[in-house]
């Protein structure tokens, strides 16, 4: 066997080996391999340091070159705070009323979620997948499939866990789908990804909506709790526009995510999710109602 044939055989063997590796480790439900666990555990503090440095640099330059916009934003935030203050009072009243009504109807109180704060220490620099790495791992009680949220809404779920860090599959990743419904009308559907035009990158789409679905632009989309990964009632985003699917049978909606995925810095891991039993007891009835 001459040297060229040897080379070709080595390259072919390597390609087959690597393709098999992708096949066997590409399942999003798989755990970290030992090598990944070892490297990521050792390097997560370094990643944390660099991401902090990156965030601070961004904020420094953002503040320097965008002074006027920041000034305007400050004014808007002040006005918004005043409006929210007013809303908070109304909300308190409604909360009290809700509590009284729940007691009257003998509803079980909704399960409280235990939230574990985590910092984003890295994100996939490539373009094919939407994942971030956070600085909490199985040593902190993090498990696969736990939901990840921010104060704005649902961000994604844990798909790989190592000792001190975990990888989060964001909602904008095409491998992620969330069962969701329209908060106002309670229409069921599924949230996937919108990538139709460059300017729509990072947006989501809600599919499988019946033709008569009661949905309109501006509606808030929340998680339905079906599937067991995401708790019910987490805000996914708001509807931008609605059109028909390719076959003209079902409706679909473009959804603007509540979370700014470009600027994720801190997240919360939902450590406790309500069981299917709890879901059935929530107002809205049996989970089968959503189909």
């Amino acid at each position, binding site marked *: 066997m001459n040297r060229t044939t040897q080379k070709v055989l080595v390259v072919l063997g390597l390609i087959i080996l690597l393709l098999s590796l*992708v096949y066997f480790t590409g399942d999003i439900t798989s755990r970290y391999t030992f090598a990944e666990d070892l490297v990521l555990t050792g390097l997560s503090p370094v990643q944390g340091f660099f991401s902090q440095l990156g965030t601070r640099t961004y904020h420094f330059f953002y503040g320097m070159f965008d002074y006027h916009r920041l000034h305007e934003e400050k004014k808007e935030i002040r006005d918004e705070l005043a409006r929210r203050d007013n809303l908070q009072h109304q909300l308190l009243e409604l909360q009290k009323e809700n509590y009284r009504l729940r007691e009257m109807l003998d509803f079980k109180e909704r399960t409280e979620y235990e939230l574990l704060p985590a910092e984003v220490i890295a994100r996939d620099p490539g373009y094919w997948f939407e994942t971030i790495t956070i600085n909490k791992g199985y040593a902190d009680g993090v498990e696969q499939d736990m939901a990840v949220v921010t104060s704005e809404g649902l961000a994604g779920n844990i798909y790989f866990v190592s000792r001190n860090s975990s990888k989060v599959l964001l909602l904008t990743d095409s491998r992620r789908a969330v069962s969701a419904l329209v908060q106002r009308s309670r229409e069921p559907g599924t949230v996937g990804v919108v990538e139709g035009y460059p300017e729509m990158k990072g947006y989501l789409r809600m599919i499988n909506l019946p033709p008569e679905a009661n949905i309109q632009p501006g509606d808030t989309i929340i998680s339905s709790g079906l599937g067991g990964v995401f708790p019910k009632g987490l805000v996914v985003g708001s509807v931008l526009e609605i059109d028909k699917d390719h076959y003209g049978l079902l409706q679909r909606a473009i959804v603007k995510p509540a979370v700014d995925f470009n600027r994720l810095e801190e997240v919360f891991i939902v450590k406790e999710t309500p069981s299917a039993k709890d879901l059935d007891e929530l107002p809205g009835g049996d989970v089968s109602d959503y189909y």
Partner: protein
Amino acid sequence: MEQEFWANKYYLSSYLIVVFITVLILVFQGSFLAFTLTGNIRPDLLLILVICLAFLWGEERGVVVGFIAGIFQDIFYGPALGFYTLSMLLPAYLAGLGSRVIYTDQVIGPLLAVFLGTILHEAVSFFLVELFWGNEFPLSYYMETMFLPVAAYNLVLTILIYPLLFRAEQAKLFYPSFK
């Protein structure tokens, strides 16, 4: 020095240095750069390094560099082990072959290699995604919105990076014990 290139002690130190630089770039790219450049298009420093070194060192050592960089990228950010490794190998190999026909002391060669290598790297990624998970859009869509802008970005950065690597190679900085 031609035979047994992967076992040659002369080259071993250079591969260890590549491991070190790869880890540094991956940490920098996934943390600092990802938090400062928040747009859709970001340069791929690791790919620039791989293609430039492959151009300097030839196709055989280029493949080793591509393998090292790819496997570490898989460990850090990959959706599966082997994904980035596969997409790094082909550009590295071809860039190494390119150095046979273009002089390594002129920046035009690596510029061309990085531009075409970036497109090739993304095209291989496209086919792997298609094979294992499925793409939403045709290749032409990604070519227009992603491959070409990233290739242009990488090309500009190569003007700065390649001369540094070339000088490091001339000064034998990759082979400290043989200086």
